[in-house]
């Protein structure tokens, strides 16, 4: 059943027929405006966001590619050799007596002996640049060494050309006729390794040795290794108690 709407001839002074012509254009105009604000503008924002996200993913991909390409060029055996060698440049155990043992061996080579040594418990400290993966401890010990006067310089050179790398923090010498007494404060470093390692976040520069570091490795290769070898996967033996029965109560 059709419902006929009877409109007046004029509305607000304008011919109704004319007004009817503009109904559709006005309706379409509203539709265009709504679709512009609801569809087109949000799509522009999404496009901008997609572009940003794509750039970010491309950037990350490039970084990972560089790291991957570098690791593909690395000779595994050579890398492990360098790592094992450099492990010798630091103390193998976080133990002051390891350092004492090292200094004792070096001193003995030049006819010196350790008269006394002092470890200050509060001074074995962690490095302020502690990293999540690797914890660093500095181990300083004060030594008094006695030995032949003509060999003291060789001893000092020996300390400075040994592995693990030792730093003489202070030096004081008093000499008699043929003997000399050296008061040295010697320190070395120990790194405790942790197992967590964020392979994705690590920077490429943290994987590559610089030219200066390669040169340093080459210099260190001329040093004498004095520390105790710790083989990989070497485990401390468990303490074994040997039981003995009381012979008086047999």
């Amino acid at each position: 059943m059709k419902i006929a709407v009877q409109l007046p001839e004029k509305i607000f002074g304008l011919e109704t027929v004319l007004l009817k012509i503009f109904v559709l254009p006005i309706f379409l105009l509203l539709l265009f405006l709504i679709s512009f604000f609801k569809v087109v503008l949000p799509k522009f924002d999404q496009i901008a966001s997609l572009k940003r996200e794509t750039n970010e993913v491309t950037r990350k991909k490039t970084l990972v590619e560089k790291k991957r390409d570098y690791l593909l060029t690395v000779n595994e055996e050579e890398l492990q050799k360098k790592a094992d060698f450099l492990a010798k440049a630091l103390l193998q155990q976080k133990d002051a007596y390891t350092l004492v043992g090292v200094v004792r061996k070096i001193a003995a080579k030049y006819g010196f002996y350790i008269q006394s040594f002092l470890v200050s418990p509060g001074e074995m400290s962690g490095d302020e640049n502690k990293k999540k993966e690797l914890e660093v401890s500095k181990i300083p010990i004060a030594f008094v060494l006695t030995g032949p006067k003509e060999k003291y310089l060789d001893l000092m050179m020996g300390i400075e050309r040994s592995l693990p790398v030792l730093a003489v923090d202070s030096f004081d010498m008093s000499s008699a006729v043929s003997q000399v007494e050296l008061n040295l404060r010697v320190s070395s470093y120990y790194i405790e390794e942790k197992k967590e390692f964020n392979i994705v976040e690590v920077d490429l520069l943290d994987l590559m040795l610089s030219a200066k570091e390669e040169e340093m490795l080459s210099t260190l290769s001329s040093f004498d290794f004095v520390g105790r070898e710790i083989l990989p996967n070497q485990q401390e033996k468990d303490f074994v108690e040997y039981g003995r029965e009381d012979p008086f109560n047999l």
Partner: protein
Amino acid sequence: MNSELNLLPSQAKFQAKIINLKKKVTTFLWGVTGFWLLVLGVTFAVWLFFRLNLNREKDNYTKTLAQYKSLSDNAFVSEKLKYRAKLVAKMLDERFEYGESIKKAQSFFSEKIKVEGFELLNVGDFEISGVVAGVEGIDEVEEKIEKIAEGRLEGFAFAKMKSLSFANNAWEFNMELKLE
């Protein structure tokens, strides 16, 4: 006589205007709608392009990351090596090499000059006392001090004659020498 005869009544004229206007409005609407559909189509196409591009980049990134993670052992050893190398390099840079510096200070003079006393005042700062017979020997000492003052001797920062005396046909001197 009027040459133009107005045969259409005013109402008919009005109807003709309405029809004309309708045609124009319809043409305009088609044009605008067509343009608008084009805009929507292009917008959607661009959006789709960037969407597909992103998905492709993500796939490539995932593949590359998987390849990189397969080298995690090497990465771990490399990172460990680098950190240790940095630490050892820092140790070597920061440590003062007493042995080297004493050797350098002791080799300051030639064999003409007999070094009798040698003391480390501070890090890199030495007091040297010696004896030399003859003018050439003391000239050498003074010449070296002068060269250091002028910055012409590498490795030495400062030198100063603290005392000089002549006794028993020999010059006795005491000087301070600072290394760089």
